């Protein structure tokens, strides 16, 4: 809208022969992964300037969170990054648990870790599928979807939904795994690593893939930190920052895994990092599954976890000994949730997903702030796409792994 008009005003210099070539990429475009709009200024096919315009999927999750109670807010989080909703659930739940000072049973932690890593595999498979399709390798797309389907079926058994799980609740998870699910997950972890070779045969050493990804959109480590890039994008530049290692949450302290990093910070390195993460996620699931029998029979919700329906008011329980005269205890309200603030962040498959919540004592958050990786990553597109070709821009959007529901909230 405004951007277009503003630029239109200053253009068309009649004395000059050349006028810049403007292109509107999106909001309806097959490879902008949603309703992202990129306003491009081109010189031939080289991008001189790129202005991302977002907000087409803005649903006001932060505002809605202020009128819903803590457990209901988790339902909203499903709709943010709808490819890896279990990770979002966990981020929300962690922040709320910190606020309420809950102690999560070990079994719930393990279960959460499993679903989070499943979400990572789901997400990376979908990323690889769309990234490869954007670059033109259409068969990888279908192979990735084939394997993702399996995971979605497992998700369906775990929590009754394929995409919007709402599996994690404040204080734990909603229900335990059955033996059937555990067996199937074991089978998956057995069979998944060989399947990764399928994709790699098609693209890993393929000369066209190498040409399209090597040396494209190089981000040096210093710049990557300054731009706020996180997750595989940052690790591709060689910075081993991973929230799972730096500020461990859930059961990540117990499991053994490697944080893969790249060297050059180009699209190929980020691709390699994600492929390695697929294997690591598989390993983590395996280790967690091995630990599950130790916690057999434990509850999956914290002792003092709030009910799903968090009451609006709690009356102070009447103290057993009769109080002094004149002190009215009966009917005095106490905060449902301790007032204060909490900040929790997780390593979501796309990057660092941070939730900052302020409570005013009621059953609803006073302020819910979500720092999503996609939002930050989109803001890096102008930097990364400068002096690249249009075809590279597609690769850049692919390599950043953005979801517009995540960025616009």
């Amino acid at each position, binding site marked *: 809208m405004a951007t277009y008009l503003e630029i239109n005003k200053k253009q068309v210099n009649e004395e000059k022969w050349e006028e810049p070539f403007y292109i509107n990429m999106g909001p309806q475009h097959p490879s902008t992964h949603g309703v992202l709009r990129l306003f491009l200024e081109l010189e031939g096919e080289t991008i001189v300037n790129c202005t991302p315009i977002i907000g087409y999927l803005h649903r006001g999750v932060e505002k809605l969170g202020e009128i819903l109670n803590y457990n209901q807010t988790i339902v909203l989080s499903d709709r943010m990054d709808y490819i890896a909703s279990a990770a979002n659930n966990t981020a929300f739940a962690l922040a709320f648990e910190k606020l309420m000072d809950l102690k999560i049973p070990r079994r719930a932690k393990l279960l959460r870790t499993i679903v989070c890593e499943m979400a990572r595999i789901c997400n990376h498979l979908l990323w690889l599928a769309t990234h490869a399709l*954007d670059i033109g390798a259409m068969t990888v797309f279908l192979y990735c979807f084939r394997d993702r389907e399996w995971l979605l079926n497992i998700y369906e058994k775990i929590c009754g939904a394929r995409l919007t799980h709402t599996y994690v609740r404040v204080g734990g998870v909603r229900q335990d795994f059955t033996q059937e699910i555990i067996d199937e997950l074991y089978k998956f972890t057995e069979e998944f690593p060989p399947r990764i070779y399928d994709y790699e045969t098609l693209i890993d050493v393929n000369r066209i893939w190498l*040409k399209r990804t090597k040396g494209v959109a190089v981000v040096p480590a210093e710049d990557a930190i300054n731009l706020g890039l996180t997750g595989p994008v940052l690790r591709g530049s060689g910075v081993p920052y991973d929230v799972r290692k730096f500020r461990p949450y859930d059961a990540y302290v117990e499991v053994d895994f490697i944080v893969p990093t790249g060297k050059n910070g180009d699209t190929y390195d980020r691709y390699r990092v994600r492929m390695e993460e697929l294997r690591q996620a598989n390993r983590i699931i395996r280790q967690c599954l091995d630990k599950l029998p130790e916690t057999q029979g434990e509850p999956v919700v914290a002792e003092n976890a709030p009910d799903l329906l968090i009451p609006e008011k709690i009356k102070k329980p009447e103290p057993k000994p009769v109080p002094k005269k004149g002190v009215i205890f009966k009917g005095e309200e106490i905060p449902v949730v301790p007032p204060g603030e909490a900040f929790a962040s997780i390593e979501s498959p796309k990057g660092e997903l941070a939730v900052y919540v302020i409570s005013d004592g009621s059953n609803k958050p006073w302020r819910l702030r979500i720092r999503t990786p996609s939002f930050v990553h989109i803001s890096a597109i102008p930097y990364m796409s400068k002096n690249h070709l249009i075809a590279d821009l597609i690769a850049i959007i692919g390599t950043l792994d953005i979801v517009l529901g995540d960025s616009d909230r």
Partner: protein
Amino acid sequence: MLERLIYFLIAAATLLVIALLHVAYLTYAERKIIARMQQRLGPNRVGPRGLLQPIADMLKLLTKEDLVPYGVDRPIFYIAPFISLVCAGTGVALIPLWEKFIISNINVGLLFILALSSLSAYGVILSGWGSNSRYAFLGGLRASAQVISYEIAMSLALLSVVLMAGSLNLKDIVNAQINSPYKVYLIPQIIAFYVFIISAIAECNRIPFDLPEAETELVAGYFVEYSAMRFAIFYLAEYFGMVVMSALAVTCFLGGWIGPFEVPYIPFFWFLIKLYFLLFVYIWVRATLPRYRYDQLMGLGWKVLIPLGIINLFLTALLKLIF
């Protein structure tokens, strides 16, 4: 005179129908083969195993609204698809399907086909220009650059064949192959064949060289604004181009209609087998490879294929001189 005319008309009509059927079923085959490579089912709703799918597609596209966007250059917009189709389709008439079946046996057959395939770029460029769309325009520009650069590589590859056969007449080329020691030019001209196949894929705008239409970059490139019948014609032209290019490869490198043994009653048998195999390669490659970038494509054309073509031509000439 009249007899000849009638024969000519009947033969042309038959050939056209057969070629059109081939093109239609090529789309079906492509969808089915790629589906199987990707572990999908592919079209299977219309008719047994989806065999009537191309016909249903055609009917659907013909009955759809012919949308003309605002601000297009109307005459050019209307005529561009037909230029593409005619240029791509006419080539079929020159291909010797069999010793005794060739509609137009002219002495400059090869040259004529090359000229036609260059002309077909006009359809692409004009549609890109006339659509009044930036994506289409970029697609048209890419197409023109691509077609021009790959045309050269292809001509160089074919030129060595011409040198060996000593004729531009396609029938003579096949006959020359039959009389040559290897029966086909594939073996002595392997480099030329390599260059030719790559340029042919580029010439037909197929993956990995489908830059002008690059689905994920330029949406659909030069025919982004087209709909209904005109869109279908572009589609037809593309597949026609594939058929003609494969037929040319069969004629010039794979020995045309000859085969290891004679198949009774079907004189076209070996020709068709070779043709189908080449078409399968097109589809196969599409299912496997990613897409080149624009500048890399140009680099490949000018820095690899053209030098290779020239070296090959030089070698051929040298060998011809010696023996």
